[in-house]
């Protein structure tokens, strides 16, 4: 997934609120193709072929299990936190919001035409491609920080036209000029993964901040 993020983004389509005439937005349950993960973006193991990959996979599994347990203990859902922040920031931007339930087990935008019992002018479709903690590499100079990658598009209800499309990366592990990138909050960094596990409240707050900042960026794109 992280490699996929480096290779291809989505085409950027800017929104023009002054001509779009959108007042009410249905926020569709974001897609979330995978659980929270701990991503070591670059490692020594990657240089050692299959053996290295197997060792990396074992260590990744262990970190993923620890992170997911930590978030479960704190009753924290990245998806719920993101959706809550999205609704809050868009409402403060003057939109009237409705949430629209949808399957979250999808890795791309919805294909089928969108509809809602409550009439809306547009739908906001988002996909949370990656969420959890990332380290850019090994060593203390590459601490573990919250990371989140979201694709988003606004679709006009009457003709299903795409009015806005973009990608937002919180704590970008790769240099990408086409996506909106958010530098991670320095308050939430852990030099070692064990430090992260030992500070579950701080780790959860870090991920919550990532969802808040990402939602704000999407609200800025829709201003």
């Amino acid at each position, binding site marked *: 997934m992280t490699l996929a993020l480096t290779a291809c983004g989505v*085409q*950027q*389509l*800017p*929104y*023009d609120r*002054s*001509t779009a005439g959108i007042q009410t937005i249905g926020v569709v349950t974001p897609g979330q193709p995978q659980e929270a993960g701990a991503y070591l*973006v*670059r*490692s*020594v193991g*990657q*240089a*050692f072929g299959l053996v290295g990959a197997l060792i990396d996979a074992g260590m990744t599994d262990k970190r993923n299990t620890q992170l997911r347990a930590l978030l479960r203990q704190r009753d924290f859902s990245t998806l719920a936190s993101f959706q809550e922040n999205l609704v809050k920031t868009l409402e403060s931007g003057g939109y009237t919001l409705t949430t629209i339930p949808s399957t979250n087990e999808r890795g791309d*935008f919805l*294909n089928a*035409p969108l509809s809602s019992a409550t009439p809306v002018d547009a739908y906001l479709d988002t996909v949370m491609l990656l969420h959890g903690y*990332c*380290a*850019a*590499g*090994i*060593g203390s*100079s*590459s*601490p573990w*920080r919250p990371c989140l990658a979201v694709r988003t*598009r606004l*679709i006009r209800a009457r003709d*299903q036209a*795409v009015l806005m*499309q973009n990608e937002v990366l919180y*704590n*970008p*592990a*790769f*240099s*990408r*000029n*086409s*996506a*909106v*990138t*958010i*530098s*991670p909050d*320095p308050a939430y960094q852990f030099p070692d993964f064990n430090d992260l596990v030992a500070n579950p409240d701080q780790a959860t707050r870090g991920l919550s901040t990532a969802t808040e900042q990402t939602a704000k*960026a999407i609200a*800025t*794109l829709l*201003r």
Partner: protein
Amino acid sequence: MLILRSAALSVALGMSACAEQGPTPVVTLEDRQCVGDAELVGGSITPLVMGSTVEAVVDSTKGCWRSAVGSSSYVAFRLPDITTPLIIKVRSEPVGGTLLVPRLVVLNARGEALRDVPRDAFLFHGSALAVAIRLQSDDRYLVVASDPAAVRQQVSYTSGGNLIVPITPLHFANIGRETTATYTLAHNGKVRVTLEALPTISR
């Protein structure tokens, strides 16, 4: 082969070690003679061509514009006649530790401001502050100006990158590293402006 690999490594490390110095950040325009209207005629205005990117350095040789928000340095661009849907992308890119803090004003043929895109609409795209907007038929000029309210502020940008190290005489590994750059928001810097057709995205 070993020599080649070592050379490549040296280049990679060398490039990462030598950051571009860049100009001193200009944080005041008190010594400049600023005018009340952005100059939209003559050689100081750059025409934009569909499908191309123009790079402009904003420094003390460029115009100074005094508006309701204060004094700003600026560069102005002339748009072609807009007969099909177009978008414009504006990127303020760091030069060393200096980053022009941008805002955008779109004007009509009479030089009247139609829309103002403030500083906080610009979001980081990599290390650049960038925005994209749709153009409308009355749009004739684009002014990229500095935002006097935000100059002097410092912003940091952290991102991941590659770090190649030898692990045996014949093996190298990318162990990665994180880099944080700090920029001073300023009246000077470098902007890139791209004029494109509005992409059509089907569902």
